[in-house]
């Protein structure tokens, strides 16, 4: 059903060959634990690459974005029914864990795997 409606929805300018950098995508980003103020207890690693998602979500959510049906509907509601309902947001889709070696307050040394600490891909939802 959405496919037949797509032709009626005007495309934003960047979808006609505008800058691709504004599209929702994964941006590599690295930070040191020193910058976060945690280097007094984290031994390894020194650098952390959480990455982030940034960009505009297209009005027609393509398959590769892994958007749920709800996001497609919300886009249509924004476009056709009520603009106070926001367009879907560009957010992380998949994450990977990070292993950290730290010293706790008692002097114990701890190896720990924290889930969902690094964004690996993005989605519009």
């Amino acid at each position, binding site marked *: 059903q959405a496919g037949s409606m797509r032709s009626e929805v005007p495309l934003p300018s960047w979808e006609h060959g505008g800058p691709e950098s504004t599209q929702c995508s994964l941006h590599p980003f690295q930070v040191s634990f020193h910058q*976060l*103020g*945690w280097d*007094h*207890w984290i*031994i*390894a*690693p020194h*650098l*952390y*690459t959480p990455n982030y998602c940034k960009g505009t979500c297209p009005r027609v959510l393509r398959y590769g974005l892994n958007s749920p049906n709800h996001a497609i509907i919300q886009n249509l509601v924004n476009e056709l029914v009520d603009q106070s309902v926001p367009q879907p947001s560009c957010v992380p889709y998949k994450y*990977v*864990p*990070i*292993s*950290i*070696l*730290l*010293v*706790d*307050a*008692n*002097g*114990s*040394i*701890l*190896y*720990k*795997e*924290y*889930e969902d600490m*690094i964004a690996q891909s993005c989605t519009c939802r």
Partner: protein
Amino acid sequence: KAGKPSLALLAEAPTLPLIWELLEEAPVKQQRKPHVLGHPLRYMLELYQRSADTHGHPRENRTIGATMVRLVRPLLNIARPLRGPWHMQTLDFPLRSSRVAYQLVRATVVYRHQLHLNHLHLSCHVEPWVQKSQTYSFLPSRRGSSKPSMLSETWTEMDITQHIQQRLWNHKGRRILRLNFMCQPQKGSKVLELRWHGTSSLDTAFLVLYFNDTHKSVRNIKVLPRDPKEFMNNDSSLLLRRTR
């Protein structure tokens, strides 16, 4: 909020589980990193390097078998006087209260089985401390032990999982694992007056606890049906789970 430590800022969002966890592990405020050097730190650094790459990504082929490993150092170091050819240190290891989400899967004690002290060569082993009134047979000192590849030849690793799980882990309140570190002169060495001065307990033994995160399995447990009939007709594993 310039100048405020980032963890203090995060503490203002106490509903986030990760923040609670970080606050629990992190030293208070911006205190200096506790002094940890020597074999304990070297052991954990090598364990880390085997399990994760330089960016902190867990290695796919890691053999650690746990999502959390805690190295615990002894609290007390009570040296006992000579008793026959044996020299003994009593080591107390504090065991933190077990958090529901983490299951103890393995426990080992890593200790020096060869010690050079006051020009004396000693052979050492570790035994769980037991009250005199109790009779308790423990595995022979070197059985189930192996030389940890992460340490030099003078160190040995001994599995004490069963001992901790059976005798300590399910106890409520403050739990202390007490071990005796016992040494005797190697053959050919003369027994001289022996003092432990210069050899702290931290240099002789430490405890390594391996845990697995059970968050995921907790999340996946189905909600029990309210109707008892439905409950009885359901999978028997549900019955077992409820009994537990």
